[in-house]
């Protein structure tokens, strides 16, 4: 048991680091660029240097590297001050690309993958709908055949980066008269197509990182279809199973270090808050979770380093981190007492603003990408092997499924 790289990993790390040292963009090179412009600038540079989408085959703009090498690059990159990448590329590269690699024609792969890798084209994901969230297979956006084209009508929601996207992956209902999982079809769609309207959603935190996307008589050629007609659910599962290789980055905001520092700075009954036994007990429990996730990740990395598949333990991350962050932010506000509620979203860089900012944004993390409850179901059913909940909608035609509206 040790934490050292193998010889090959160490050599790769040194190579990655040397490249990063020479190529991380300087402020002067990006003058005048906005956030998305900077993200694209950095992605293009990584791509030009052969450091984008490392695990992809070279002909698609990748490097043909292993997963552990991707993780090592992420770890090294995290040590530098680099442009904020947000979700600009993660959906396209992490979810659309693997699906195109599995189901797309050679022509589609050649057309889309290199520009995904280089960051020239941003993709978004048109999956969730107002009536299809945790129950994604209840989606109702219709696709109807019209000659060689499909005509799409419906509404999608929670669509990150839709306003920047050149293309989207889209799941639709093509046959409402068969059971729900059987009547879906999957497409790629040009976001500049007539009939697509993107509207930002204002969140309770005040920000707008999501959109709703209206599709009105949008025309998609049949050669943009991924998988067979009626096979859309299976294709969508490929997308959803491709967890982004986000391992290696740090977690910012309300964490053990920041809340402990706060407790050292503040007082309770005129003594340092960190000396209070309740504060210590709570912090210790959060440390157990934070360290537990860190060392779980090391176990996952070990599996990757050996060329094995990660074990099921890697499934707990988002579930633990979401509620922990929310509770720590809430506790930090408590420690600050009355003053803790002050928040001007325009001045998020101020000391302690991170806690209120996290407090207001983290409810979203517990819902996005699988709610806590869905994550618990996944652990119970896929890891522990417990039987699924009986479902009344599985075998009857989708059009007969009861709805609340």
């Amino acid at each position, binding site marked *: *048991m*040790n*934490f*050292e*790289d193998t010889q090959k*990993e160490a050599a790769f790390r040194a190579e990655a680091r040397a490249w990063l040292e020479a190529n991380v963009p300087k402020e002067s090179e990006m003058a005048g660029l906005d956030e998305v412009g900077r993200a694209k600038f950095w992605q293009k540079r990584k791509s030009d240097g052969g450091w984008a989408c490392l695990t992809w085959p070279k002909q698609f703009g990748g490097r043909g590297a292993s997963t*552990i090498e991707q993780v090592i690059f992420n770890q090294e990159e995290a040590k530098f001050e680099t442009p904020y990448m947000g979700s600009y590329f993660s959906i396209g590269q992490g979810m659309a690309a693997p699906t195109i690699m599995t189901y797309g024609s050679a022509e589609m792969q050649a057309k889309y993958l290199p520009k995904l890798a280089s960051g020239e084209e941003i993709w978004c994901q048109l999956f969730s709908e107002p009536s299809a969230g945790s129950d994604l297979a209840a989606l109702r956006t219709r696709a109807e055949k019209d000659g060689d084209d499909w005509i799409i009508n419906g509404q999608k929601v929670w669509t990150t980066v839709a306003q920047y996207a050149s293309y989207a992956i889209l799941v639709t209902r093509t046959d409402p008269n068969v059971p729900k999982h059987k009547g879906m079809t999957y497409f790629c769609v040009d976001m500049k197509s007539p009939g697509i309207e993107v509207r930002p959603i204002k969140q309770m935190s005040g920000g707008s990182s999501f959109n709703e996307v209206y599709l009105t008589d949008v025309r998609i050629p049949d050669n943009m279809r991924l998988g067979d007609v009626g096979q859309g659910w299976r294709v969508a599962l490929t997308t959803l199973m491709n967890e982004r290789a986000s391992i290696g980055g740090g977690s910012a905001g309300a964490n*053990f270090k920041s809340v*402990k520092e706060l407790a050292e700075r503040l007082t309770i009954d005129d003594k340092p808050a*960190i000396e209070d*036994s309740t504060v*210590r*007990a709570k*912090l*210790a*429990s959060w*440390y*157990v*979770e934070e*360290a*537990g*996730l*860190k*060392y*779980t990740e*090391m*176990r996952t*990395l*070990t*599996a990757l*380093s*050996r060329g094995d598949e990660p074990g099921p*333990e890697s499934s*707990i991350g988002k*579930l*633990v981190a979401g509620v922990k962050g929310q509770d720590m932010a809430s506790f930090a506000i408590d420690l600050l007492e009355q003053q803790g509620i002050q928040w001007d979203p325009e001045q998020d860089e101020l000391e302690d603003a991170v806690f209120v900012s996290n407090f207001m944004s983290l409810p979203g993390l517990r819902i996005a990408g699988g709610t806590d*409850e869905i994550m*618990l*179901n996944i*652990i*119970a*059913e896929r*890891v*522990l*092997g*417990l*039987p*699924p*909940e*009986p479902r009344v909608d599985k075998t009857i035609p989708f059009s007969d499924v009861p709805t609340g509206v």
Partner: protein
Amino acid sequence: MNFEFNDEQIFVRDVARSFLAANCPPEVVRRVLEGNEHYAADLWQQIVAQGWAATAIPEKYGGLGMSYLELVLVAEELGRVCAPVPFASSVYLATEAILLAGSEAQKEHWLPKFAEGEVIGTLAYAEKAGRTTAASLETKVENGKITGRKTTVVDAEIAQLIVVAAKSDKGDGASLYLVSLDQDGVSYESVKTIDPSMNHANIIFNGASAELLGADGEGWGLLEKILDRAAVLYAWEQLGGSETCLAMAKDHAMERYAFGRPIGSFQAIKHKLARMYVKNTLARSNAYYGAWALNTNAPELPLAAATARVGSSQAYYYSSKESIQTHGGMGFTWEVDCQFYYRRAKVLAVTIGSERVWSDKLITASDLVG
């Protein structure tokens, strides 16, 4: 990155698991729980014959000279079956105390006896309800004779040798002593506890001979170091128990039908079991780190030990209580084995300091690591 046990260590674990499956079925735990034995002496003899007590003792002191990475896996397996033997007291506490603080002569004298199981050891510092500190110690040693009273000492009536924390005028206010329990001036007050599958008693020292272990006035510091090392080993034993609780609850949830379907198909049960899995996984990963820190004697050991200890105490308590809950009314009966784990979870969680105490130590230790 190689944060994993190697094949030889996994082999040691697998052998321990099959051995205990064959030799420590629930009937053995129940026999001690219900009967008058202090421990399963027959099982202990077999365990000693397997060499487990000798695992981490160096070869020159009659041990096997293996690493702590083997010992933690044995601890996990003992926890998995709630083994009613004084392994923790003798191996995690007394053996570690002598390895850490003993003179060469003390090591040469005692360690081979621990390795062979010829002597069973334990350790005592608590004297009162609430947290005992160096300043609150009343037990004292004068002219090599010890007087005082230690409360609820684990395996007190089984052990032949005990490591005792006593008051000192010097240094940190405490010193450790080795006291042979087979002598005049040692008496016991039997106590009943929530876990009759283990032995506990109060020990009264009234002029028994005591031999200094480590330097006079460095006892409390040594005790903390011993407890840090023991905490990692306890954490693995606790983790083993917690895993069994999850396995029992899962098996029951698959077999038990209500409202026309297995209760494991209800989200109320599913989520409970998933949370057990999450807690056990966090505890396991922290226990890995604790094992690494113990094995390499890393400067991070105090933090790693406290983290492993708090994580395992929390996981075991949660899993043992929710396993009873999942079993419903039957889980609350004497007949069903859920009770073994609920009892043991709490006993192990306070034996070397409660979750609260270790949470406090965790924060203190985090200052040093940064």
